[in-house]
Structures are given as structure tokens and as C-alpha cells.
């Protein structure tokens, strides 16, 4: 396969510098380069990619390949945003010495991902600043669910002992406020431990993974055609984005491309998902500072979008629409008209609601300078998506790695430096307007033709990375196929997993009553994180 021309300089440079230490280089797809090497190369290779090529480590995960190659494999996925390609470093971890060196001290962004590998695969972390359990709670027995010799249907005995071991926070007048896992609102479960002195929050410890459902293990146990429906259930508010990222990975593994019309319909659905979530979030942020009227208007508009979703795809959350090789349902003339109508109606409505919000000084007063995430901190933690863009992190897969039909339009990406709640809301406002414009552009250019091609049986032992910019941020699905149209591994990376740890940074110095609005302004998925 020919390498993307923009990737060649980086690849040549890496070869020149590290060639004697590469075991192999594979080029399965133009923008997906695999480099096999030994563990001792990881730290130096990563540092070089970061500094010389401004790469980002977007996903880090393990794969139990003991059956085929006698070792676990660790994968480090680097995105080279300027070149529009991925470099994936694969290193073996010997089965009889299951340990790996941590990168967290250099790149805090991978802290949780490394701990997850430790929990789910039993590969011991060396040199991690906080090597405690993350994906499995402290009261779980010593099991490694993603190892191949662990059965999905294992019935674990009742859990004993302490669920979480927290770090101690001490000092005069310091007290703790534990919240959750069952929260006061209609949201997902998670536990927050605030350490407070007076009003301001000194330190926040997060304990998630309450909704861990064994999703990645389940992917390995289901026939591929059922996996799309499972991908829709990773994070309900991103059903279509996750399912599409999964289909993208399948198509890349099978070397099949969705037909042009299907790509356009996918893009339209992705924008519809962005629309209803952004509008709902803008309303919810207003509710959290007691401006409920704005939320009522937003919910009205959200309902309007959901009903159009249903008339287009049969489901309000766009479920059942995605399938490998394209999409399941075509839009007819009448449906396209209803979509144009939606945009035409929503645009002035949305503007008038934004006007109301902007006219409410008491609302803005609560949002401005609240929950500030500084650009430097955001960069260190690799914060992606809306939260990243509100803190100066200028990345969007729709523009940098055009998937679906995003190469057919110009995507404007709003970026702010302030990083407060107000600007995380402002990003959403800008993106809603951009979505209106994108939907119109897609409709204007919508090509005729098929909406689905047959994918056929997947080749065995193929690996592929699928990606989609969901409304919350970048979503990656990495798969390794097994014989018989099955998956040997499916790694799901939701942007929430990347962004959660930074909440502790954003809330510091704020008061607990502002936590709901700060949390809402990130609106991270618990289920997408926990899987």
C-alpha cells in the first residue's frame, strides 16, 4: 500500500533514526503505519515523535496475542495531525514477565489507559506515579478479564473489602464530601470525593467504572454482524458515532469503502447527533445555574431534532442506521425536505435562544471564569474534543483526518483559549451553527447511488483503526480480526476516558455548588469510559 505522501517525511526520518531497532514496518493502509519494536524503544520513540513531529499519543492498549505469538502486545497509537496519519507502535510483553514501563511521568495523558491495561490484562506497571486500580474496583478479586483464558461468562463471587482506596488529604479544617455513585439528577453513576477547606475545593478524586459491562470482552464473543449493535450501546448519546467508528474499522480491515452517498448520509447523521447533544448541553448548563427557561427552549429544539432523527432512521437516537459497508436506510426526497426544513426552522430559533442567554448577565456571571482549564494543563492531559478546543487545543478529526464525507466540505473549527464553562458552551454554540451549515452543504452535494456495499468475510488476523469525530470528541475503534468473521480484540477509545482526569484540575479552587455546571460543561460519558 502506498503511504500517504504527507506521512513520508516522518516515516523516512524515523527509519533513519531508529531503523536498526525496528523489527518490522507494515503499511496496511495509506494513513496507518505499524512499527514493531521492543519495549526499550518506547520512551525514546515517543519523546522523539512528540518533539520532532508534534505527534499525540491518542490511544494505548494491550492485546493478548499469546496464542499466536507467545506474548502480549502493547499498542501505542500516535496521531500526526498535520500529516493526517497514524503511526502505531507495537511492542511485545513476554508472558512470563508480564510488566511494562509507564510513560505517565512524561505524558500524564496516558495515566488511566496504562492503569486500565494493568487491571484488565494483569501487566504490571513499572514507574507509574499512582499505580492503583482504575478499571476494576479495589474490591474485585485478582482477575484479568481481557486475557484470553478468562471466560466472559465467569461468575465472580460476591466482592469483599473496601471498594476504593483513596489518597489521604489532611490539614486543619479539611473535610471530605463524598458524592455518588447514585447522583441527585438523571445521570450516570460515578463517585466523587471532594476534599474541601472552607468553600473552595482543594482536591477531587474520581472513581468511575461503575458501569463497566465487559463490553470489549463481549466484542470478542459476538459474531461481527451483532457487534455493530453493541457499538451503539457503548455510549447512548454517541450511538451513531461509535457505531460508525466501528464500521469504519471493519471496512478498513476488509479493504472496502462505503459508497459516496453512504458517506454523506453518515456525515449528516453525525451532525444530527452533534446538534441534539450540543443543544441539550447548552440548556443543561443554563439549568445548572438556575436559568431554566433557556433549558426549556433547548429541550423543545432537541425534541424537534430527535423526531426528525426518527423519521430519517427509524430511531430517535439514530440507532439501527449504521452498518459496515455503508448505512442501512437511504433518505428519499421527502425526508431530505424535512431535513432542510429542520435546519431552516432551527437556525432562527437557536439564534433567539442564544440571544436570551447572552442577555442574562446573572447567567453569564456564573459561567465566566468558572471551572477554568488552562491551555497548558489541557495539552499535558491530552484533552480532546469540545473541552480541548475551549482550552486552545486545535484538533478536530473532521478537518485533520477527514472521514465519512468531511473531505467534501470545509469544516470550520472554533478554538478558544479561556477554558472556562462559558467557552465550553461557546464552542457548542459555534458548532451548532457550523452543523447547520454542514448539513446544508452535504444536502446540496448529496450524490446519487448505492448506500451500502457488501463487506464479505473479514480476513483473519487483520488489524485496523477506525475513527470518527463524535460530538464529544475523537472516537477510536481498533480491531484485530479472528478466523470465522469474528474479532480477537476490539479496543474502544471514547473521548471521555481521555478527559475525565482533567476534571480534577478544572474544579480546583472552585466551590462545590459550581461542580454540577463544571461537570456538565464537559458532559463526559461514564458508560463510554467504563465500557
Amino acid at each position: 500500500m502506498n503511504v500517504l505522501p504527507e506521512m513520508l517525511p516522518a516515516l523516512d526520518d524515523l527509519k533513519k533514526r531508529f531503523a536498526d531497532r525496528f523489527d518490522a514496518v507494515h503499511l496496511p493502509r495509506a494513513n496507518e503505519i505499524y512499527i514493531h519494536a521492543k519495549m526499550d524503544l518506547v520512551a525514546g520513540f515517543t519523546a522523539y515523535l512528540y518533539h520532532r513531529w508534534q505527534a499525540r499519543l491518542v490511544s494505548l492498549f494491550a492485546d493478548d496475542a499469546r496464542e499466536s505469538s507467545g506474548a502480549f502486545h502493547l499498542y501505542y497509537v500516535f496521531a500526526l495531525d498535520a500529516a493526517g496519519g497514524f503511526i502505531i507502535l507495537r511492542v511485545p510483553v513476554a508472558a512470563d514477565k508480564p510488566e511494562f514501563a509507564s510513560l505517565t511521568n512524561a505524558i500524564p495523558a496516558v495515566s488511566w489507559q496504562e492503569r486500565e491495561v494493568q487491571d484488565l490484562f494483569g501487566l504490571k506497571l513499572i514507574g507509574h506515579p499512582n499505580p492503583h486500580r482504575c478499571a476494576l474496583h479495589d474490591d474485585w478479586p485478582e482477575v484479568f478479564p481481557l486475557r484470553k483464558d478468562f471466560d466472559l461468562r465467569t461468575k465472580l463471587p460476591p466482592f469483599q473489602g473496601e471498594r476504593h482506596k483513596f489518597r489521604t488529604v489532611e490539614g486543619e479544617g479539611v473535610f471530605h464530601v463524598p458524592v455518588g455513585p447514585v447522583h441527585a439528577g438523571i445521570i450516570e453513576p460515578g463517585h466523587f470525593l471532594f476534599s474541601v477547606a472552607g468553600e473552595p475545593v482543594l482536591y477531587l478524586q474520581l472513581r468511575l467504572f461503575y458501569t463497566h459491562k465487559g463490553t470489549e470482552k463481549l466484542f470478542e464473543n459476538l459474531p461481527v454482524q451483532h457487534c455493530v449493535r453493541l457499538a451503539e450501546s457503548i455510549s447512548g448519546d454517541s450511538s451513531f458515532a461509535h457505531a460508525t467508528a466501528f464500521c469504519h474499522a471493519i471496512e478498513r480491515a476488509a479493504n472496502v469503502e462505503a459508497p459516496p452517498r453512504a458517506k454523506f448520509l453518515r456525515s449528516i447523521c453525525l451532525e444530527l447527533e452533534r446538534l441534539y447533544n450540543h443543544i441539550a448541553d447548552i440548556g443543561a448548563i443554563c439549568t445548572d445555574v438556575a436559568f431554566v427557561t433557556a433549558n426549556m427552549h433547548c429541550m423543545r429544539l432537541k425534541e424537534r431534532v430527535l423526531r426528525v432523527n426518527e423519521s430519517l432512521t427509524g430511531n430517535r437516537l439514530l440507532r439501527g442506521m449504521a452498518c459496515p459497508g455503508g448505512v442501512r436506510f437511504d433518505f428519499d426526497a421527502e425526508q431530505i425536505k424535512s431535513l432542510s426544513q429542520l435546519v431552516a426552522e432551527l437556525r432562527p430559533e437557536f439564534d433567539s435562544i442564544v440571544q436570551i442567554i447572552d442577555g442574562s448577565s446573572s447567567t453569564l456571571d456564573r459561567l465566566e471564569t468558572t471551572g477554568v482549564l488552562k491551555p497548558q494543563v489541557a495539552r499535558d492531559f491530552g484533552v480532546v474534543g469540545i473541552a480541548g478546543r475551549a482550552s486552545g487545543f486545535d484538533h478536530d478529526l473532521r478537518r485533520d483526518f477527514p472521514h465519512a464525507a468531511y473531505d467534501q466540505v470545509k469544516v470550520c473549527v472554533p478554538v478558544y483559549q479561556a477554558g472556562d464553562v462559558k467557552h465550553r458552551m461557546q464552542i457548542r454554540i459555534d458548532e451548532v451553527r457550523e452543523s447547520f451549515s454542514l448539513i446544508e452543504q452535504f444536502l446540496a452535494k448529496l450524490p446519487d447511488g448505492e448506500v451500502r456495499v457488501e463487506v464479505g468475510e473479514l480476513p483473519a488476523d487483520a488489524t485496523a483503526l477506525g475513527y470518527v469525530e463524535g460530538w464529544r470528541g475523537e472516537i477510536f475503534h481498533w480491531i484485530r480480526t479472528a478466523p470465522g468473521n469474528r474479532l480477537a480484540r476490539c479496543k474502544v477509545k471514547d473521548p471521555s476516558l481521555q478527559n475525565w482526569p482533567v476534571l480534577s484540575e478544572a474544579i480546583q479552587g472552585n466551590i462545590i455548588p459550581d461542580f454540577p455546571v463544571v461537570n456538565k460543561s464537559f458532559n463526559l460519558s461514564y458508560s463510554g469510559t467504563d465500557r
Partner: protein
Amino acid sequence: MFGILGKSLSTGVVTENYPATLPEISSRARGKPEIDWANWRDARPATAICPTGAISFQDANGQRTAQINLSKCIFCGLCAEVDKAIRITNIRECAARRREDLVTGASYSLKPDGSHEKMISPPAIQRSGDSTIQNNEPLETLGQQIKSRADKIFGRSLHIRQVDAGSCNGCEVEIVNLNSPVYDIERFGIHFVASPRHADMLLVTGPVTRNMELALKKTYDAMPDPRLVVAVGACGCSGGIFGQNYATCGGVDSVISVDVYVPGCPPNPHALLHGILLAMGRIPPKH
């Protein structure tokens, strides 16, 4: 201030009158699948394509018992694509008081090629242990009496505590919509509350994960009697696509007892309202 008022006035009332008037539903909306039982000839293709095992069959002694279990169905419509005897309706209000009431099945004589033909017993709700129910008739009546008394208590106003016991948050997206001005659940005197101690009803979503098992039990225990539990969504009703595995316990009733099951993936706000009103006794059950 005047801008806010002006906007509200110009918007007017957007609230629906459900369930008094039924809303217009897109003909493309996917709801529960309906099987043409008399003309169903082969349960195998639909069984193979169903991602959650909602359609299944069992062969024994030259007979096949095939069934559809709405508590597992995610209304994806794939079965209708491979089987002409199955039609996807746009009916979403399928809530039931018993999980067995969501399972319908029929028996057929089996042909040598693996398909089936003549229907032996007509479609019926697949209740297990019917004989024991008959033996315990007085107990059943007593249960009914308690039920109707409870219905009287809950029938007026109701406070709900929602618990996500492991869902993907799809159900939450729709439950939040109940508070929107379009559905406005408060017009029924129903209110979402922040604490289980204030609640009459627990609205539970998700396959119950092992990590939420204890929290769900504790939340239930914190509620004052009498209390209702409504299991929401395919996962809440049966475990859905996740079923039971090392990290999940399955449906809500594997941890606490459930009064009403609301199928769907996710159930839309009408289906949710229907289920909640059914639990309150404000909609008579079908069976």
C-alpha cells in the same frame, strides 16, 4: 427580562396531551416486531440475525416452539429484513407487569429440512409454571387486593428516583426528555426527586453491573414502603445485548423485584410514560 417573556409568549404551549390524544408517529419509526404466526415458516434466519436473542426456538420430538421476547428486543428491525412473516410496527408502548407477559410463542410441526409448518398451538404468552399459579389462587387474589390498594395510594401523585445501574446512557437521554415542555411529566403530578428517601418509585436502567449491584440494593432499601420499581429498556428488562457476564448481573429483577417492565432501546418518552402510568395503576394492564 421582556425578551425572555416575549420568547415564551411567542412560543406558546408545546405540551402534548398524551395519553388522551395519541401523537402522530412517523411511519418509519421502528417499534415492536409482529409475527404472522400462522404463516411463519422458519424461525432460523430471524434467530440468527437477532443481536440480542429476542427471537429464539427450541426443537424437540419433531416439534418446534418458537418465541419472541420483547424484553430483549431492541427494535432494530433486522429480523423483518430476513423474514417476510415479521413486520415492524411503530408501536412502542409495550410495558408489562410481568416479564413473561413480554414473551409470545407458538408451536409448529418440524419439517425434515429444518423449516417448520403447521402451527400446532396458537401464539400465547409463555408463562412458566401456570399450574402453580392456579394452586395459589387465593394468594393471587390477595396480591391483587394489595395491588389495587397500592394503586390508589400511588395513583394521584408520584415521586421518582432514577437510578442508572449500568446503562449506556441512551435511556437517560429519553428519561431526561420527560421533563421537557413537550412531555411535561409534572402535569401527571409526577416529579423526579434527588433522594430515594423521598421517592415512591425507582426507575432503573441498564443491565445491573456488578459494581452497581450494592448501590442499587441500598437505594432500594432507603425507600419508604410502599414502593414501586420500573425496569427501563432492553437492558433493564433482561440484560439486553450484555446479558449476564463477569461484570453484569443481567436485568434489574436479578437484583430487586420489579413491578413494571418497559421494553425499548431506548424506550421513547411515550413508552416511558406508559410504563410509569401503568405502574401507578392509571392505565389498566392489557392482561
